[in-house]
């Protein structure tokens, strides 16, 4: 299977490079469809219980490369395939606007295919060296996709930030994987579990933390998240959607995979993951609210959702550690389902943000308004995704958060004192995240789509074409299926979540949860029925009445205009004051001069405090220290040649000296 996918990818990449730019989107769609078809077939089989195993001979360098697709990999592949598919369906329309302008489109779509293949590879390849290579291909291809608009300086800057941080991630993974393989002489992932079983628990904990931090950079846990808001906000909309929807989930996948492989104390790991995730969740949404840039706002929400997924993983691990099958199952099932759910609604939100951007050419929420009248379908898609991300029933986000809540409430009364206390705090944290998300998305939806337009745009604002809306409807279909028939999804989750709980359950937690979800599905339908019947009653009661359209009541003021509306900044002002100590707000304000002042402007820019502490401050110190050795880089060619000579000499001498040293050492040993 894997060779087949690689060959197809190479074929299509060649096809793109030799064909017209206008065709490249459709060719990429073809490639994604074929690769999705092949990998989904294997993945579906894995999810329903038939794992796939294939061993490729990687020659003398790689050794045997095992390709293993278990239920966990299968679940992630299915999730990823769907978002990549909707991404290309949307992206090939999105890129039409840039045609014949940049000349990068063919490269962009070629990278899109390569990126898809490499993500499949990451989920299935279980050879450390091959894994690192594939991870690098994934990082580079996504970098090229992100810097599509490379002519803008801020794009390039954010792109480089992304490139550097993704390589720190690779560095940590390399250290971890090479550490294991240097001890076991094998690149197979299974050697990780044999190695960690043979060393002391403290060492295997450190090994796990290596992997955890490495993957956490990719996933965007606080404080490793700083690349994420920049990269997401400057990439083309479909790339942001795919990045936020599935690429950061590679980190989640890595954390889950290593949880299976590294033999550790699950309880401690669970605590660590739970606390980091709680901080990520609350911090992500707390910062999302104050963002003015729509895509940046969505990017901070990714951090929040990664936090929710992490809470699920954390309580799952604690469940394994305390031998509580229900807790373990609810935690892992909740986090896996939330991974899927987040990929659905977040990619949808990014696509609609892209549509808005291409219509009015700005992402500043404060200059939008009243778009629902011009773009009703986009508005409906956006509100469904917004409600889903807030975790509101009857949409899919609620189901996964509900599973996590179930686990937490169960753990509250069955665990020890420390577990009870931390779970109560997690419950409060999760409730807080839900409330904050509500504040954030009422702001986003209300200010972008409702009220009157806040600024004038020269071009006409129209609903986007059906082919651009279609992927959105496709996603909404699945959002509703999961939200209204959660029991069906739950059946699919039994195997992927069971990978973790095998050996401790006999299926009863799943059955209990499924019967619970059946009731939720029933209540959700009754809710829809209730809305429909109230609406009908209202129609009936008002059937003979005329409908009066009048200006908005403006409290006696007769010249109300669009400038008097609440803006995004004023909507969250009292919130901003409340959490002031956790924020950095850069404010620029003009002074009022004279009685009849000329127009003055006031600007606020939110900044990330974690970034200021963990990234900017160390960089400043490093810059200072590097300034002292800057004389080395003096631009004089002869000096550079001299450095080369010195370097070669040192290398030669070291190897010579090491030979001498080894000889002396042997001599002493023999004496």
């Amino acid at each position: 299977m894997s060779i087949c996918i690689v060959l197809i990818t190479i074929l299509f990449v060649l096809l793109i490079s030799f064909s017209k730019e206008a065709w490249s989107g459709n060719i990429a769609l073809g490639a994604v469809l074929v690769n999705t078809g092949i990998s989904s077939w294997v993945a579906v089989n894995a999810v329903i219980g038939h794992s796939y195993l294939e061993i490729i001979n990687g020659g003398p360098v790689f050794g045997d490369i095992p390709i293993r697709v278990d239920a966990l990999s299968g679940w992630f592949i299915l999730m990823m395939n769907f978002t990549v598919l909707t991404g290309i369906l949307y992206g090939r329309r999105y890129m039409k606007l840039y045609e014949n302008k940049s000349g990068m489109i063919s490269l962009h779509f070629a990278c899109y295919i390569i990126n898809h293949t490499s993500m499949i590879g990451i989920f299935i390849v279980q050879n450390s060296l091959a894994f690192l290579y594939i991870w690098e291909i994934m990082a580079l291809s996504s970098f090229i996709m992100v810097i599509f608009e490379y002519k803008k300086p801020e794009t390039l800057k954010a792109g480089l930030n992304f490139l550097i941080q993704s390589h720190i991630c690779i560095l940590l993974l390399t250290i971890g994987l090479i550490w294991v393989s240097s001890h076991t002489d094998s690149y197979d992932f299974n050697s990780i579990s044999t190695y960690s079983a043979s060393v002391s628990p403290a060492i295997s904990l450190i090994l796990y933390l290596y992997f955890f931090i490495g993957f956490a950079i990719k996933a965007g846990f606080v404080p490793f998240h700083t690349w994420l808001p920049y990269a997401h906000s400057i990439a083309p909309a479909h790339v942001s959607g795919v990045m936020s929807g599935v690429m950061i989930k590679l980190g989640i996948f890595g954390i889950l995979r290593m949880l299976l492989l590294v033999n550790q104390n699950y309880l401690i790991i669970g605590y660590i993951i739970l606390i980091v995730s709680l901080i990520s969740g609350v911090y992500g949404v707390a910062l999302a609210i104050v963002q003015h840039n729509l895509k940046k706002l969505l990017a901070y929400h990714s951090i929040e959702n990664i936090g929710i997924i992490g809470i699920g993983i954390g309580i799952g691990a604690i469940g394994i550690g305390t031998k509580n099958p229900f807790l373990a199952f609810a935690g892992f099932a909740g986090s896996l389902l939330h991974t899927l759910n987040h990929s659905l609604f977040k990619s949808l939100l990014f696509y609609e943000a892209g549509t808005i951007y291409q219509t009015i050419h700005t992402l500043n929420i404060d200059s939008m308004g009243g778009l629902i009248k011009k773009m009703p379908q986009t508005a409906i898609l956006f509100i469904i995704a917004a409600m889903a991300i807030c975790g509101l029933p009857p949409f899919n986000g609620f189901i996964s958060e509900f599973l996590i809540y179930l686990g937490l409430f169960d753990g509250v009364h069955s665990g020890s004192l420390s577990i009870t206390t931390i779970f109560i705090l997690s419950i409060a944290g999760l409730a807080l995240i839900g409330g904050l998300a509500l504040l954030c998305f009422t702001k986003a939806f209300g200010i972008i789509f409702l009220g009157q337009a806040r600024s004038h745009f020269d071009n006409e604002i129209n609903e986007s074409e059906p082919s651009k809306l279609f992927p959105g409807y496709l996603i909404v279909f699945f959002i509703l299926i999961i939200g209204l028939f959660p029991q069906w999804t739950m059946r699919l989750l039994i195997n992927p979540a069971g990978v973790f709980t095998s050996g401790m359950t006999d299926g009863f937690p799943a059955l209990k949860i499924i019967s619970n979800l059946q009731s939720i599905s029933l209540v959700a339908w009754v809710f829809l029925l209730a809305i429909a019947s109230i609406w009908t009653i209202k129609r009936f009661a008002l059937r003979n009445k005329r409908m009066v359209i009048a200006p908005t009541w403006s409290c006696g003021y007769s010249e109300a205009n669009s400038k008097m509306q609440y803006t995004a900044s004023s909507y969250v002002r009292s919130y901003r004051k409340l959490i002031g100590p956790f924020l950095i707000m850069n404010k620029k304000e003009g002074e009022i001069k004279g009685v009849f002042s000329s127009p003055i402007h006031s600007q606020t820019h939110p900044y990330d405090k974690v970034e200021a502490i963990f990234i900017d401050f160390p960089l400043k110190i490093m810059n200072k220290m590097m300034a002292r050795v800057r004389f080395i880089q003096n631009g004089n060619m002869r000096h550079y040649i001299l450095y080369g000579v010195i370097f070669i000499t040192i290398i030669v001498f070291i190897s010579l000296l090491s030979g001498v040293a080894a000889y002396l050492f042997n001599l002493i040993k023999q004496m």
Partner: protein
Amino acid sequence: MPGLVFILIILTSFFFTGIVIRTKSIFSGRKGPGIFQPMKDIGRLLQKENVYSQTSSFIFKIAPDIYFASVLIAIMLIPFGNQKGIFSFDGDFVFFAYILAVGKFFSIIGALDTGNSLEGMGASREALYSFLAEPAFFILMGSLALLTGYTSFADIFNGIHFGSYISYAIGTLASFVLVLIAMIENSRMPVDDPKTHLELTMIHEVMVLDNSGFDLGLILHATNLKFAMYGAIIANLFLTPGKEWYFSIPIFIGVQILFAVVVGTLESFIARFRMSHNPQFIFTITSISLLIFFAVLLILGKYF
């Protein structure tokens, strides 16, 4: 009969606000309207035509319906002593909180839909205060789940009576928290004053400035229903075990009336806080529910 409590709550909602207003009028030395006057007002509104703002879209038209429906569904989850509600499942109180949030979501964006600056202000405050109140409710339910070992409304309220008498002390504390949550959720004193005359100081009332006729009637009655719903939760803490309806129904009605009188008394003697003090007040509730949590830990002997 699982529908019994649903009917009882609906019936209570007809006179609940009336009792509150009546209490306030007695305390202020006025004769005051009859206890069914608020219902008559709502009935009048339901017969009127709707006036829609030019700025608004379909969101504004559908928002009151969804708000009302969400409250109805939330009521269906409330049990009656040891009888289950119409729907009962593990974690139903999570669903309860989130379905109410759906209604809130729509009432907020409905207010933003009119483009009125004052309604935007009310929406902003409503969103802020409701997220602050959310953790208190969840910590309270978590503590009760810890105390009883169950995770659904019906099982928790059933299990609470089989503990010692200390569980009634916890019930009292819990009802204190629930009364305060109900005051915040319904935008009453001391967080908000429904009878204020200045838009700048309103929260909920200013959000519905542009709603009229049938829609306004729905919104006003949803508030009554919400009051009766929280009253029912409080009543559940004190309903004795046993199936005797002639025992539990009077307790239920009694608790509801008492709750209404308490609300009226609170509103007569407490002044509304300054807006900037509200968040602190709401945080206090969270800390009280944390107190309940520690009390439960003490009872269960988890503290050594």
